[in-house]
């Protein structure tokens, strides 16, 4: 019993005051992928490489749209790896809980 008390006191508090105090993910974290519209040329390499198929390309009324859904994303970073323009990258963002699926979509568009 005495040893348990010593161990407990020695350990102290190990929890942190999250979310009051932000908990920032370490560099290299596999978080929410980000699309950089100024670099993207809509080549579709990321679409082909994405294992769960949550990136897709639409073309309608002279406009190209690239959609990335975090709903089903496995954060593998294959999109980042294959993109020839560095237009997609994983970020440190992990607070992705949402009440609608639409909130989990990132869409970038370009006129053709």
């Amino acid at each position, binding site marked *: 019993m005495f*040893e*348990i008390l010593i*161990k*407990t006191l020695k*350990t102290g508090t*190990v929890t942190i005051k999250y979310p009051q105090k932000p908990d920032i*993910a*370490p560099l*290299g*974290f*596999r978080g929410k992928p980000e699309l950089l519209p100024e670099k993207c040329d809509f080549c579709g390499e990321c679409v082909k*490489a994405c*294992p*769960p198929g949550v990136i897709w390309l639409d073309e309608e009324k002279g406009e190209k749209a690239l959609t990335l859904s975090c709903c089903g994303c*496995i*954060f*593998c*970073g*294959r999109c980042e*790896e294959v993109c020839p323009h560095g237009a997609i990258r*994983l970020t440190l963002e992990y607070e992705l809980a949402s009440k609608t699926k639409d909130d989990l979509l990132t869409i970038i568009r370009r006129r053709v």
Partner: protein
Amino acid sequence: MSEELIETIKKEFRSNVFDETVSNNEHYLTVRKEEAVRICDYLYHRLDFPLISVFATDERAKDGCFRIHYMFSCKGDTFIIIKIKVEETSPGFATLTHKIPASNWYEREIQDMFGLVPVGHPDPRCLIHFEDWPAGFYPLRKDFDIRTKPARVKGEYIYRRVEGEGVYEIPVGPVHAGVIEPGHFMFSVAGEPILNLEIRHFYTHKGVEKLFESLSIDKAVFLAERISGDNSVAHSAAFCQAVEKVACVDIPPRAKYIRTILLELERIYNHFGDIAGIATDIAYPFGAAHANRLKEQVMQLNEKVTGSRLLRGMNTTGGVRRDIGDKNELISKKLATLKNNFRELMELLISSPSVADRIETTGGIPNEIAKGLHVVGPAGRASGIDGDTRRDHPYAAYPELKFKVPVRKAGDVNARTLVRADEVYESITLIQQALSRLPEGDIRTEVNQIPDGYALGYTEAPRGETLYWVHILNGRIERCKVRDPSFCNWLAIEYAVLDNIVPDFPIINKSLSLSYSGNDM
């Protein structure tokens, strides 16, 4: 060694062996269908080679036949695979279960997924299919479209009954309270002692092996990684090793070392989690809190090292995707403190009489039962089975590193806890050795243009031996047979609980650390 062995087998069975092919450390012998049981029995009982997998392939497009493969793990880092041809028009094959109990579930799996019938099987009920699945639909046959949704039919599944005065049944699950996957446990009890337990699983069967056949190899790595969430590295590494073997690619030494470090980090956090789970179920929250705290520390370390708490996204065919060389000091420092903390915790845990009271002699699995069912991993080693894929069929950097394989004989919850604890220390020394000798160089070799062929990849996951048999045809996956350790170990729980009391079931269950997801593929 292996050549002599093959000669002995060929001599013993002469005209019954039609064909022999050797690739890497795998010897494939095609034998007469009627002789398979006798040959397997000889390998198992006379030569003492464990049966590690039985699976079928649909090769009707080639010659109108299915094949059944019986895979044995042999001494001297070799595997013998006995193959038989089974024609579609005569789908029966003699059961091996009477001779080797471990083949029980495999044969029933083949029956459900391929429609081949294990004649004389002691328990021919469906295993993976449910009673409402219509006859004639066999998902792993090539002519079964992955999008098929057969209409459900009326059917019945009959559980074993234990009858007698005062005997009653406690059906538990498949829907459980709390965050746990589905499984049905039918207990027959007389008062508190358990007279019989029958488990029923596969409620979340996902058709993973079929899915592999529709994926490109680069994508399939991520599927393998998700078959059993907390054994991600072991699964993806086994898959990658199988593909690399087919492609005749030797991955760079640095990649081998990185894989080894990841595999051992995975073992450490799993073992901490299992020890925490056992402590929770014996109402020792102090121990559980500390073990969970250590597990959390490893997961945070994982995140810093790989970007993923579950070490995902690292393995790829040809090596690894990220270097971890700059994390050397971070890992070493963390492991040193973890080791001290863990030692302190284990001393408190072991010296507590209330802990000993709940785990000693609880949930015993006798050695002969463990051997018969081919129980693997810490559960097997706690029942006196001296087996560890890292040593017996070395891969990654293991041939160059020193480690012990802890084995205990008691077979109870206590032994399983202590085997895990001993393994944690071994894992720490393995990582320390790997870090100090981390070779310079590339972390990845390109794997392009994979020739047609098949190979076995294997790892020792935290739960035990994990196997991937991958057949590649025209650059695509023709067949990927996954054998998760839990597929072997689940049946052991039916024996482990006998004569124990119902309140000890959760502890026994936790001590076996069984995966639903890895099993219900």
